[in-house]
């Protein structure tokens, strides 16, 4: 048996697999996942990404402060900088690991996508996401979980750039393989060491994220990009889950054993007492009537 949040099948057909978990794509090297580099030093807050996202995903245009069912990305003003907020497309997504029906899936390409036909609406993904990304259609009778799906169906799976990366004229949202984005980010920091805080957020956090950030100031200033350890979250539950089969077998055998021993003992006791009672009966001159009392009851 395989241990750890590792693939359970062979990697093909990672969408809509009825039956076993579709974690196959986790065989993709994390560095080869597609991701987005958000360079907050270059961002001007022009909102082109915001508008492009609405357009690609055909979302009603509301002027929203934060993510919601109609808004997959927002541009927030933090200090002097503009910081985009969107799904991080984690390398080991908590949302994917907790979804009981595998409605959320990390594709082999990198985007974390959603299949509404599987979803039961338990909202565990929302509780689990460390970045607080998924939102919900609370007023619908067939509600969906809504978040940035990295334009998977309409663009990225067809080899196109995401709507936001296509729209950004300042090189502040760039799409590419994680390894290329990390290299580019390093270069930008190196070339302008006085402009950049020398840290790539998302390179290692929680096992790495697809969306990564550069900033002029330390990331403590950006509340929605908290300091996380490198340990991927799904390991925390998997550490417990993968032990369960062993526990079940051991506990099952143990209980069957206890039942057997206890019952045998009781039977023995009964047998022996039965014997003595029988012997007493034979010895005594007057036959006892154990049932007499019961009858009068």
């Amino acid at each position, binding site marked *: 048996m395989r241990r750890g949040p590792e693939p359970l099948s062979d990697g093909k057909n990672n969408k809509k697999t009825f039956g076993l978990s579709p974690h196959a794509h986790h065989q993709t090297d994390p560095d080869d996942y597609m991701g987005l580099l958000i360079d907050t030093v270059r961002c001007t807050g022009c909102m082109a990404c915001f508008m492009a996202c609405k357009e690609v995903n055909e979302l009603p245009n509301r002027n929203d402060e934060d993510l919601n069912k109609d808004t997959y990305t927002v541009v927030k003003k933090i200090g002097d900088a503009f910081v985009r907020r969107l799904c991080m497309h984690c390398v080991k997504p908590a949302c994917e690991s907790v979804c*009981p029906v595998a409605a959320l899936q990390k594709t082999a390409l990198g985007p974390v996508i959603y299949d509404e036909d599987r979803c039961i609406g338990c909202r565990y993904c929302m509780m689990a996401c460390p970045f607080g990304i998924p939102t919900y259609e609370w007023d619908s009778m067939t509600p969906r979980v809504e978040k940035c799906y990295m334009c998977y169906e309409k663009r990225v799976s067809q080899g196109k750039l995401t709507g936001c990366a296509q729209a950004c004229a300042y090189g502040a949202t760039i799409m590419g393989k994680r390894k290329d984005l990390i290299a580019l980010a390093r270069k930008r920091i190196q070339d302008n060491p006085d402009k950049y805080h020398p840290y790539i957020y998302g390179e290692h956090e929680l096992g790495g994220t697809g969306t990564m950030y550069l900033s002029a100031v330390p990331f403590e200033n950006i509340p929605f990009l908290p300091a996380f350890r490198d340990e991927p979250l799904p390991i925390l539950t998997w550490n417990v889950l993968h032990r369960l089969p062993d526990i079940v077998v051991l506990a099952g055998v143990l209980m069957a054993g*206890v039942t057997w021993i206890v019952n045998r003992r009781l039977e023995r006791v009964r047998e022996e007492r039965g014997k003595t009672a029988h012997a007493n009966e034979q010895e005594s001159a007057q036959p006892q009537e154990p049932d007499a009392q019961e009858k009068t009851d």
Partner: protein
Amino acid sequence: MSLISTTAIRNRAGFKPTLWTFVLAFVLIAGAYYSFVRFTHGLGDVSALSDKVPWGLWVGFDVLCGVGLAAGGFTITAMVYIFNIERFHHITRPTVLTAYLGYILVSVALMYDIGRPYAIWHPLFMWNPHSVMFEVSLCVTVYTSVLTIEFLPVILERLRMHRAVAFLRRLIIPLVIVGVLLSTLHQSSLGTVFLIAPYKVHPLWYSPLLPIFFFVSAVFAGLATTVFESFMSYRFFRKQLDTEVLDALLRMAGLLLALYFALKLIDLKNKAAFSMLYQLNSTEVRMFLLEMALIVLPLALIMMPRVRGTRRGMFLISVLVILGFVLNRMNVSVTAFSAYHGVNYFPTFPEFMISAFMVGIGFVAFYFAVKHFAIFPEEEPFKQDYDDKLRAGMELPEIEKRPAL
């Protein structure tokens, strides 16, 4: 048997509407109305849930507490059938009934809470073995089936299908073992559910021991529920109150409360979180302390034979334990997240009414089950007689050796 049922009927004939009848009627009517709203207008209209607070009262109370309070089912059956503690035998039926109703209601409540109730069957066919929620839903489904089979003899007896009853009786031990395994799994896994969110769950509650906390607390809460349910049956159905057995259950619960409290202390020490407890102005700390008080207080009362020995004391202890348990589940699922979400959640009136509706349905269903099926054994003398005979080492008639569950 016939004699007893006539007594029971006579008791019921003397039934007069009390305050509780009106409360129940109100809850049922309001619950039905808000159920209609929920299933025609969606979650947004009835609940205070939002993107910031995805889980509220229905997950915390209806589901987490429902499953925990129904834990008496596996605990008592284990004691009777695995450890062969015969004196608990006569409370098995009412306890299994409580557990069975509990699990059915949890499933119903889930239909209210999940956004797509018509998809509730999906986890059975669309698997994700990495998901705790998936494991829990499988366990709960299978365990509810196990409870159905455990309860079936009661129904079959009534239909006079004695052959089938005899057959099911032979299955009882494996069934109980499977039930205990499944319960252990999902009771603890409900704690594992929260392990995924170390950065969201308040450090007072986040702990690698969460699965163990959930399991141990479910067992003592299940025992307390059994005591509580006995008192309810005594009060409303004039059933015998076997104080000796209740005393034994409470002592067991006491042991587990002590264990739980010790584990909590160890956990706080491991997290170096004691100093946190001085921040009395934070809601989390206050809630946590209240929760601990509701562990220590019933524990202390259990250790006082003078309190535990009285009916009032027993009832009080069971209520306190249940309250503490409910508070813990609400804290873990709601309070512990509020700092992260930065939003204070308070359930709406409809949310409360639907939760109360679930409890109300439970009471009504219990009432009908007691009325129509032989849930309670044929009163005390039977058991006395049985024990006497066992002590004397006498041959027992087959039916008494292993009475139907």
